[in-house]
């Protein structure tokens, strides 16, 4: 038996979470360092996963399979394709930044209660690691039931992170803040639980169907896919559609897709910036990932059937999220609505059913994670300095804190997909992929890039430029060493992947081809294909440049 790399990668943060939680109350700093080291070690393991993954190899690699509940065909099955490997890497990459940025987030909760057993710092970092472990399993699980359990279970630590450690910077005072926080946490939990229940019904349904036609029910994705391809696993059209809907609704809530998005602005607005990053950059990606992995693979016919509606909702998300971002007065809610717009792009790419669209959507998940982390974490640094989330409370920050303003601008430019930064590559691929099959949808979505420029630049203008109008800003310090250490690698990654995304596209491409063959779609062919432009290296180009004579 080979080394269970995926299990170890996911288990490490889980063990780390327990260990962090067990650190004695007095040794808070030790708990922080422990959590950071565990997250860095996990990052190393995730990097090993990426390196060990062979783009030319089997569809699912590094597989592990053990019987778990044989009566129900539930197995402990792990394996990654390129998409899963890339997203595991993203998760493992972002957690150290989340921990570094949230270094002091739990500090002011210390001493809030007389109870000695109250250890907020340990709790905060343990919960973050717990979320990481669960997300990693979700990206690696190839057993539908196993996936479902972790998809649901991650809600619990997230709930406590939002409700227990939320943002203290509230305009209406501490008491109102606490109310808003618990409202946001409850809303997050209920919304996602509701989706989870629908999915549970569909999971059971899937088991029933597989038991029906295969004789032995199974949750194993590779087996189900094989049975789908060979025709052994037959489903009535209506059954397939119902099951698709059950899965899709749960993922669309998590993603989130309009009109199931309203929990996100509350959750992101009320939680601390690092937790907001955890929500939008890490946890939500499980939703879009699952659409690619489960919805398209298991229910190809239903996916095609639902495509027009899904694309329309995605388009609404793109424009609606962007327009609402323009209208926000709260920095974090603005980023939340921008994320809704971006998730619209991702879902658009997934359901455009082209290599460019789905490849772009996968890259989009990774790059959006990095760019939102950069923007949101700097926004968090800004908010912690001034104690307010309202855009109107800022202005002229550029003058006193140029590094903060500069990194904020870069995060913003990444969010509006400026070429040269990573998100441009993915957004352009999604748009090209959408356009080649659905030209009108592609054009409408392109309007989103104009709106993105609007909400980002208005935010930058109102917070960073102009004269300083408030005394609190005059004394505002620039980024500290710890903060620069958090932001600089993210900025460097955005630049590097914007110029050289090839390592990632190589890993993702084969997985996308598999997914497309699951749904039996081929890329639309160009109308007047140009023979391989082999000559581009030596032939002069020019007008009517067919100068072969």
């Amino acid at each position, binding site marked *: 038996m080979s080394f269970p790399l995926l299990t170890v990668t996911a288990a490490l943060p889980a063990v780390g979470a327990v260990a962090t939680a067990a650190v004695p109350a007095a040794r808070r700093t030790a708990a922080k360092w422990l959590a950071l080291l565990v997250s860095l070690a996990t990052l190393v393991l995730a990097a090993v996963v990426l390196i060990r993954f062979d783009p030319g190899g089997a569809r699912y690699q590094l597989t592990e399979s053990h019987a778990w509940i044989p009566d*129900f065909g539930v197995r402990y099955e792990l394996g990654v394709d390129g998409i899963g490997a890339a997203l595991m890497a993203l998760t493992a990459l972002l957690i150290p930044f989340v921990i570094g940025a949230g270094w002091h987030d739990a500090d002011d909760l210390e001493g809030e209660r007389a109870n000695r057993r109250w250890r907020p710092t340990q709790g905060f970092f343990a919960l973050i690691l717990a979320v990481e472990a669960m997300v990693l399993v979700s990206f690696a699980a190839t057993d539908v039931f196993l996936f479902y359990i972790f998809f649901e279970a991650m809600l619990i630590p997230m709930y406590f992170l939002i409700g227990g450690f939320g943002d203290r910077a509230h305009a209406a005072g501490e008491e109102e803040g606490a109310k808003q926080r618990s409202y946001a946490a409850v809303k997050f939990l209920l919304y996602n639980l509701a989706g989870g229940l629908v999915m549970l019904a569909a999971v059971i349904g899937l088991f029933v169907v597989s038991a029906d036609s295969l004789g032995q029910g199974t949750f194993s994705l590779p087996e189900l896919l094989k049975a789908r391809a060979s025709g052994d696993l037959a489903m009535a059209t209506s059954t397939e559609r119902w099951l698709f809907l059950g899965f899709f609704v749960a993922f669309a809530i998590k993603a989130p897709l309009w009109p199931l998005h309203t929990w996100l602005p509350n959750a992101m607005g009320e939680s601390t910036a690092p937790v907001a990053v955890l929500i939008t950059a890490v946890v939500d990606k499980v939703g879009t990932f699952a659409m690619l992995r489960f919805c398209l693979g298991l229910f190809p016919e239903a996916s095609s059937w639902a495509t027009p509606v899904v694309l329309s909702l995605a388009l609404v998300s793109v424009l609606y999220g962007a327009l609402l971002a323009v*209208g926000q007065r709260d920095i974090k809610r603005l980023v939340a609505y921008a994320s809704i717009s971006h998730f619209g792009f991702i879902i658009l790419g997934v359901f455009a059913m082209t290599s460019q669209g789905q490849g772009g959507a996968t890259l989009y998940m990774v790059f959006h994670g990095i760019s939102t982390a950069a923007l949101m974490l700097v926004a968090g640094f800004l908010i912690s300095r001034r104690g307010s989330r309202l855009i109107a409370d800022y202005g002229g920050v550029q003058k006193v804190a140029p590094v903060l303003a500069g990194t904020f601008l870069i995060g913003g430019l990444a969010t509006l997909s400026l070429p040269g930064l990573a998100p441009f590559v993915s957004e352009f691929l999604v748009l090209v992929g959408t356009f080649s099959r659905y030209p009108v949808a592609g054009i409408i979505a392109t309007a989103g890039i104009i709106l993105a420029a609007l909400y980002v630049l208005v935010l930058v203008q109102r917070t960073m430029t102009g004269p300083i109008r408030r005394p609190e800003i005059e004394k505002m310090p620039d980024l500290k060493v710890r903060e620069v250490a958090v932001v600089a690698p993210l900025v460097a990654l955005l630049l590097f992947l914007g110029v050289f995304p090839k390592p990632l596209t190589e890993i993702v491409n084969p997985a996308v081809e598999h997914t497309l063959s699951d749904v039996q779609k081929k890329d639309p062919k160009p109308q007047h294909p140009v023979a391989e432009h082999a000559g581009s290296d030596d032939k002069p180009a020019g007008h009517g440049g067919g100068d072969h004579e």
Partner: protein
Amino acid sequence: MIGLLVGVPLLGAAVLLLGGRRLDRSGHWLATLLAAASFVIGAVLFASMLGEDAESRAMHSKLFSWVPVEGFQADVAFQLDQLSMTFVLLITGVGTLIHLYSVGYMEHDPKRRRFFAYLNLFLAAMLLLVLADNFLLLYVGWEGVGLASYLLIGFWQHKPSAATAAKKAFLVNRVGDAGLAIAIFLMFTTFGTFAFAPVLSAAGEAGEGKLTAIGLMLLLAACGKSAQVPLQSWLGDAMEGPTPVSALIHAATMVTAGVYLITRSGAIFNGAPDAQLVVVIVGAVTLLFGAIVGCAKDDIKKALAGSTMSQIGYMILAAGLGPIGYAFAIMHLVTHGFFKAGLFLGAGSVMHGMNDEVDMRRYGGLRKHMPVTFVTFGLGYLAIIGFPGLSGFFSKDQIIEAAFGKGGTEGWILGAVTLLGAAITAYYMTRVMLMTFFGEERWRKAPTPSPAEPDVEPAAETRGAYTPPHPHESPKIMTIPMIVLAFGSVFAGGLFKAGESFVGWLEPVTQFEHGHSPVSATAVTAATIVALVLGVGAAYLQYGRKPVPALAPRGSLLTRAARRDLLQDDFNHVVLVSGGTHLTRSLVYVDNKVVDGAVNGTAASFGGLSGRLRRLQNGFARSYAVSMFGGAAVLIAATLLMRAV
């Protein structure tokens, strides 16, 4: 080698931005040196290119595969042919002079290092734009130019007006960028690629409808960067940036990008006459629009901005004429690069000596105080109005001739518009010249706010007790670039025209055909000169013979509209800004009350679940566990049921 052209200034930008305060004292020289190095590399490549046959001058170099996805191949690869070479020399040459000038102009600015970093970034982006060998990489340069202009226009971002102008420039440009993106999508779905060589050589095979669509989208892109109607509104506001930036945007980079794009995509436009017609119309409208606006502005930089818009209109018009115009569009672009850069640097020099005053009604008689500026600005002036023998004369005359050469009624209309434009150009430029350098020294008197632009604050020094400025000549580091540019303004046109050398140089790339002009070349030249004399004469009667009032007269309806940029901002405000504000506000309301309300309502209707749960906060893990168990129970029940049947 080609990559170095882009890489050298890009390196400069990176070093200056990351280098920190250590580079505050030397950074500007480093940036200037790197810009010059880029020019030298360009010149070396130019020399080696001249050694080749006309047909085999294009050079290619592929650096690496950028975005390889199934069916979609984008490379970071460069193509240097005669067209790109022309731009490279213009961008790096004029760019270096502007760097040099800025050393003097920005001497006392605390953020000088950052300014030079942005200048280098601007050059790098523009070079990438003209050197890319495919439309996607061009798009990177295209938006990079947008970013650099955003940073530079908003350089004095503590001024709200500068920050707003920067944002506006970027946004308006983004609309054009979206057009370029859609054009690339169309190329991809039509040809399966968006590299220049295959797309342009296969353009003939695609249907006219496809080519028209691609052409119109490219035109939209060009309108954004080149400030053509209807995306012109950012250009005037962009004057909020430091004056060298204006020179850079108007002469060497940015606004020329649209002309480049259309000329580069000539094969597409040649197959789409409808798109060409729209290009020509846009050019004609803009050339009059800009000229009219230029007549009404009292702000010297804004008058020059109107003039840029108008001159670029000439180029776009010429490019829309097809093979009879491409070469002339580029030729005018180059000569314009010389004299417009010279004019802006001259304007900056005037402002430098006048405490940053920009209102020409508060200038007057400056020729005695700043002789070098006067002479260089004057030569630029003569060049732009097309004084016989100077650069602008040759290049503009060719465009007018080509416009007539379009043939038919269109030809007559276009010819008439270009002639009219020439007359108006002569008028407003003479006005600028007279108001600035001739007449009474109005700056000796305390100023009154200009009624044309009451919201424009006078420079800080002129507020409070009035002390008249002490106009003086600028230091050598500023005047030398002006002198070099003046040489270009005088001789470039004649040099290009001699033996049709410029047209011959570009022909392998842009092709060339002679138009069938119904009027002889001599007649066109004569008409141009008549237009010139009329324009100059009218301005002289109005501003040379009579004293210039310190307060602008109310003026006719047209004058007042022109002062407000022909109501462009009023239009945008009513249609886009207030409409958009209402839309976003109502959407925010809808999202909170309706979409979210529905959710909360649903939750509440489940037996007040949300309310109860809210009270039971501490028991969440428990209620979650209950629901998990509930789910498991359902699962088990379902399985048992399955086994039973």
